[in-house]
């Protein structure tokens, strides 16, 4: 009997929860704010769905209803991706500078 591909995805999902669990416990509490902003940025990988939605149109109608929702989602996710990674970078740079100056 063949296994439904859904089961494979479910396996990935469950195992990733465990990976996430252990990885996040090892995050130092002083970096919890950057953790939130970076998780924000990476969860915006949802943009891949938005891109597929936006590009799934025929040549005559680039702004069909479903494509338009795709474009909107792209814009929102892009705000998050750029904003999330850059603000994380900005915060982490502050932590780094200190160490250099003082040690």
């Amino acid at each position, binding site marked *: 009997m063949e296994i439904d591909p859904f089961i494979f*995805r479910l396996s*990935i*999902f469950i195992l990733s*929860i*465990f*990976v*996430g*669990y252990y990885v*996040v416990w090892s*995050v*130092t*509490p*002083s*970096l*919890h*704010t*950057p*953790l*939130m*902003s*970076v998780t*924000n*940025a*990476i*969860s*915006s*990988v*949802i*943009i*891949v*769905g938005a891109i*597929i*939605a*936006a*590009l*799934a149109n025929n040549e005559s109608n*680039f702004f069909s209803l*479903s*494509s338009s*929702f*795709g474009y909107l*989602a*792209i*814009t*929102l*996710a*892009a*705000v998050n991706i750029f*904003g*999330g990674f*850059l*603000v994380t*970078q*900005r915060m*982490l740079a*502050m*932590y780094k500078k*200190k*160490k250099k100056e*003082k040690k």
Partner: protein
Amino acid sequence: MSANLSAIFYLISGVLFILALRGLSSPETSRQGNFFGIIGMIIAITVTFLSVGNFSIGFLYVFVFLLIGGAIGSFIAFKIPMTAMPELVAGFHSLVGLAAVFVAISAFINPEAFNLGVPGNIKLASLIEMSIGGAVGAITFSGSIIAFLKLQGIMSGAPITFKGQHLLNAIILISIVVLTYLLCASQSSSLFWILIGVSFLIGFLLIIPIGGADMPVVISMLNSYSGWAAAGIGFTLENTALIITGALVGSSGAILSYIMCKGMNRSFFNVILGGFGATEQASSNQNKEKRPVKSGNADDAAFLMKNASSVIIVPGYGMAVAQAQHALREMVDTLKKNDIKVSYAIHPVAGRMPGHMNVLLAEANVPYDEVFELEEINNDFANADVAFVIGANDVTNPVAKTDPQSPIYGMPVLDVEKCKSVLFVKRSLSPGYAGIDNDLFYKENTLMLFADAKKMTEDITKNL
């Protein structure tokens, strides 16, 4: 690009996201971690473009919208003051939630694009997945909007409660499940829209009863939700990168919520069901009798600190409100010049989000090896000469250790009272968020400094 090849690339970007979080285990590796995250994102987006392979005008539009969003995001990221981090994160969560809703909607309208069947006959599993993704996304969106408004001060931070609230929420949550079931049975698009609408509503209702100082839990929880929404969409799109990321973010947010709840010694449900103030009012009224406090000025404080050999600083949300972190660091610099040992003690729930104080101190150029967590530093208070409490309150209240009747009994607190003397910067004697009096105010060795945190800190520096 073949489906298998792109699946492998999505897996790679998922792994890079894991490394991005892993990097945050120490400040030294964190920047590299963030870099991995960026690479992972670039891979995911590029692979999506290549696998769609439709380089029509539509591609150009996608690019334009990507750049518009990117420009807005970059602008915000560079402009935002560090004190506004909690609002920013809440705002970003709402965008992830809304993006998830939009993707779910467009998958519902045009399932062919995602190989999910045709409108009116979408694969059952996909329909369930997109309902979950859409509903959780909608809850994340509206919940985060409320959190944002409360943090921004546009909406009062006080809990908004009304009779039958829990019952109403329970009914709505059940109706979401029922709607999902009916939607799967009928494939009706109007049911889909109702489901999304009801989910927006429950997001609002779930967050309005939660008070301002519980925001660390709320933000973490919404962080978690945004992850689960992404995972739901990931299952719909059969996309590994999204599934992995969703699971990572979901568990990350859940862990942070747990840490925050533990920091307040409250159960998760206690926070979610809201109304901290409501039940605790009684106990705050008992302590109404006037007790004498010693109050002083900047001069007295400067004198005490000058004669100390070690000082521990306890910052709290008040420091963020007064934007006092820079003034504080200048004061500490002066103290250090006088050979006084200074360290910072941070309670897990100080501020409005996990790690809030750490970021502000980092912004003010405080080296992170001088900043300690509660467990690391709590024993040092007994040996320190002066504790300088700036903008914190409930997290220093010794009542949490002594009075089993107190609503905060059992909450881990900083043992500030063990210091030889305590300087407490505060605007008035008003109780903190938990609505209870702080015994620390009336201790023999406490000197109250009634002033704005920033102004007081600057005055002390002048007097040192």
